[in-house]
């Protein structure tokens, strides 16, 4: 391992060093201001470090990690998302419980895990990244210590996620038994000689897909999603919904590409089935939800359904570049949007009223007494619904373009039906937000610091920018993906 290798790992190193520093700082002198500053600084520094890290990319840093542009882009995304979550959480934590410092430490560790996933090119790093992210999240979910719900959410997540991990590990073991290697690209060479009907291999893949599908909350592995989102603190739920999923998806795509699992058409069919189920059931489940967090949870089920379409499309080599590009764009757009939506919930529940479960009637009339936050929510919801001028639309357009070029009509049909159902529940929130003042009573206390306002504007701007001028990001993704492939 030489200095170039380390340079490629710069974001990871920054995060790890930051985490250690945070731990020490907490151990010696508890100071929430300092801790939060340090955490945000670490995350931002990690973001910036990709500029230098990019100079040495692409390269393998030990067989475990591959530092390429893709890894760096997504590391940066996760770090930014982490930083935004950290900033949005400050006010929230100030009003929740004592000893809030570890929260930031765990957040940094979780981000580290997500970044490792973006780098992963080996089942070991996949496992570690995933677990690092998850274990930190268990603690983050249960962080507030005054109510029961976070605890319940955390234990549900822990048990089920542990079972999913075990399933995935069992799949790894079978895979290892068949191929004799754990590294993605080496696996590709072994797999190339294996008959596409090899049962052990297929069962192994399916178990791994189960494990990762659980993290992505694809139907029927989605059951935990609403409960965990509902119980978790809003910022953590946002982080889990965005980074937690994007990282897993990135590694899934990497694994599929690197070891060319697209050959196994039956596997692809299974994924298509999961996609269809997720799109339909996710939207169906969200339909009449009055709890906004649960609604967003089910909607994320549906969105993951949309997203895995690109794995199906990618099975055709001719359309794979477009599909992967679309998927990456979708991830970025979805991350921004989800962070924004949950960010709003964070801001709304930041007050001392300790209201954790934001119901529809809680946002009633939001347009009139918190116009800025309402705009954020509006933009986020429209983006989730895929209305033009927002990131979500361009992403969906991208997705449709790739699916159309591969002629996946059934998936497209499900997407159309799912999206239309989706419009109902997204718009219902908008409708509630626009209700007249006299029609609602309980206004949740919202945060109103300058930083929050600034973050709100930034999030709105980013969603709109991604939706209005997507060209440069598209080109960039295209260029780096050509290198990856």
């Amino acid at each position, binding site marked *: 391992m030489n200095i170039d290798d380390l340079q490629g790992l710069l974001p990871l190193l920054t995060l790890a060093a930051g985490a250690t520093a945070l731990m020490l700082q907490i151990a010696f002198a508890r100071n929430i201001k300092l801790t939060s500053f340090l955490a945000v600084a670490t995350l931002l520094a990690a973001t910036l470090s990709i500029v230098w890290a990019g100079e040495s990319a692409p390269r393998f840093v030990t067989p475990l990690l591959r530092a390429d542009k893709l890894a760096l882009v997504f590391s940066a995304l996760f770090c930014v998302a982490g930083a935004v979550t950290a900033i949005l959480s400050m006010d929230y934590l100030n009003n929740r419980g004592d000893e809030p410092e570890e929260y930031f430490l765990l957040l940094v560790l979780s981000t580290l895990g997500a970044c490792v996933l973006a780098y992963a090119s080996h*089942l*070991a790093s996949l*496992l*570690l990244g995933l*677990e690092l992210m998850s*274990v930190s999240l*268990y*603690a983050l979910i*249960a962080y507030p*210590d005054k109510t*029961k*719900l976070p*605890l*319940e*959410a*955390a*234990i*549900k997540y*822990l*048990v089920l996620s*542990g*079972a999913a*991990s*075990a*399933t995935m*590990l*069992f799949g*790894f*073991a*079978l895979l*290892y*038994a068949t191929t*004799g290697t*754990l590294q993605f690209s080496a696996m590709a060479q072994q797999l190339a000689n294996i008959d596409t009907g090899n049962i052990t291999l297929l069962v192994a893949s399916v178990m791994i897909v189960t494990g990762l599908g659980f993290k992505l909350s694809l139907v029927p592995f989605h059951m935990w999603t*609403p*409960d965990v989102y*509902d*119980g978790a603190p809003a910022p953590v739920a946002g982080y889990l919904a965005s980074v937690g999923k994007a990282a897993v998806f990135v590694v899934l795509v990497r694994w599929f590409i690197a070891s060319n699992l697209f050959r196994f058409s039956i596997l692809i069919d299974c994924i298509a089935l999961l996609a269809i189920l997720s799109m339909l059931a996710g939207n169906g489940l969200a339909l009449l939800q009055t709890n906004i967090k*649960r609604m967003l949870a089910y909607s994320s089920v549906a969105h993951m359904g949309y997203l895995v379409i690109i794995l199906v499309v990618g099975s055709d080599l001719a359309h794979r570049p477009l599909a992967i590009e679309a998927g990456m764009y979708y991830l970025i757009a979805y991350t921004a949007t989800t962070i924004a939506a949950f960010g709003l919930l964070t801001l709304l529940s930041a007050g001392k009223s300790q209201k954790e479960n934001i119901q529809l009637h809680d946002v009633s009339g939001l347009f009139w007494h918190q116009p800025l936050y309402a705009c954020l929510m509006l933009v986020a919801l429209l983006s989730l619904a895929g209305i033009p001028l927002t990131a979500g639309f361009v992403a969906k357009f991208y997705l449709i373009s790739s699916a159309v070029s591969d002629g996946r009509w059934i998936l497209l049909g499900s997407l159309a039906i799912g999206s239309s159902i989706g419009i109902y529940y997204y718009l219902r929130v908008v409708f509630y937000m626009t209700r007249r003042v006299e029609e609602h009573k309980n206004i949740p206390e919202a945060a109103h610091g300058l930083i929050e306002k600034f973050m709100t504007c930034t999030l709105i701007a980013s969603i709109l920018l991604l939706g209005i001028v997507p060209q440069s990001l598209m080109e960039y993704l295209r260029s780096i993906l050509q290198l990856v492939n």
Partner: protein
Amino acid sequence: MGGLQVPLEHVQVLAALLFSCGLLGLMLRRNIIFMLMSLEVMLNSAALAFVAAGAKWAEADGQVIFLLILSVAAAEISVGLGLVLQIQRRFKTLDMDSANRLRG
């Protein structure tokens, strides 16, 4: 050492059995402690499968992964048990069927 003449298949079947037992426990038990134990069993079965596969290829990777699984299990269980303590404190029970506020 060496000279064990058991088909790898049998080891894998044993791992699968243990894995299934873990799942059974997960589906059957209501007490969170037992659920965590089931989890341990499942992780352990995966570890067994890995070690067996490592033995097949005569590589150290299997054991390395075992080590990693071990640390994963340790981390998960430590957080899990921390949660168990809190659950007992808040819900006054470890029965997950009754500690069930989130649904629908």
